[in-house]
């Protein structure tokens, strides 16, 4: 009986370990950035710094690690962007608190041009675990945090008025 109980416990532990290993979790975030630098992490198409830039992620952006290749993680953000980012700046767990955001930081998810001369949009809080932070429009639990900055910058009909 004791042997049966021990085997049952071992089997349960193995099963639990297997479940944990295959269940995807959104328990990592962008951090460790230099607040005096650009203060964003680039999401790229391939696992190399020379690869095409897909987007930029601000500090606190929550991501899911899908794969790894050397120093690079293949990640997905909560709004569905997928690409490669350097693992130095992907930290485990959730952001501990709101990191002050410098005035020159790029808005989340907005792809600026190389010269970096795109005006900085209003800061939006990063998404938090289990939901979306307040302050930015969101629908159905999905938030396209780059959209507001992009549309007000490029789609405003009064951009050049008069």
């Amino acid at each position, binding site marked *: 009986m004791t042997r049966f109980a021990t085997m049952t416990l071992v089997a349960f532990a193995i099963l639990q370990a297997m479940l944990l290993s295959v269940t995807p979790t959104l328990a990592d975030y962008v951090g460790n950035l230099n607040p005096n630098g650009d203060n964003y992490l680039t999401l790229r198409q391939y696992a190399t710094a020379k690869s*095409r830039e897909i987007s930029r992620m601000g500090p606190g952006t929550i991501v899911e690690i899908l794969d790894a290749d050397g120093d690079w993680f293949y990640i997905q953000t909560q*709004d*569905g962007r997928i690409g490669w980012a350097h693992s130095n700046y992907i930290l485990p767990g959730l952001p501990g608190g709101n990191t002050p955001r410098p005035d020159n930081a790029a808005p989340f998810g907005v792809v600026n041009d190389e010269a970096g001369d795109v005006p900085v949009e209003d800061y939006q809080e990063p998404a938090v675990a289990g939901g979306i932070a307040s302050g930015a*429009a969101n629908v*159905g639990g999905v938030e396209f945090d780059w959209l507001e900055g992009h549309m007000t910058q490029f789609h405003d009909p009064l*951009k050049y008025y008069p």
Partner: protein
Amino acid sequence: MPRLNPLALSLLLMLGLLAGPANAMDLGKTGIGLNPPARGWKLEDHDDAALKVWHLRADTWDPAPKESGLISVTVTFLDGDPWPDIAAMRDQAADIVAGQLMTAVTARTPFELVSGRFEIAGADFEGGLDLVSEGDKPVSARLLLIRTRSGFLMITAFSVLPMREKPFSALFGETGILTAYGPGAAGLNGTPAAAEASVPAPADPAANPAAIEDLLKQMQQQFQPSAETGN
């Protein structure tokens, strides 16, 4: 065989050149082309690693430009498609159009449809633009998010004409600012006169839910592919 007068031939050639688009360009392999008008419009573009933006604006808003009152057309093109929920993205973009790009929005009509290779979520608006010193200018606006199999487009268009006066009949079409090609193209290009004529006079949809449904159906009919395409 009739002889052509060389002078008449030259005039015809010149007219043809002037009437045609300045420099039509395909937006990647989306099946949609951009045809900036040759005259009367300014074009600004922004080229980035991940996206391209073209912002077209009419030189003058009053009197209304020839292109059905269109005063501004902006196209964002992404060669990728990382957003699975196009309707959610439309809703958020529509909030921004209504809340930040326009003022005093009196009508907002979302629609969704699929036409061949094009998956479309959009919204139409009636409201105003805050011209500050000149007050609010009444405008109509159309937001389109178009997913193709080879890229993603977000388009906003503003017209000084109200909905009942076909404000976007020249947005898409063979002679429009944008032209769709290939399977499903007819759904976007449509037959502007008939399609726009089907849009009813503006009412207060909030006061009548049935009116919203009717309006939505008519909007969708506007984008239905024709039988000719076989889609």
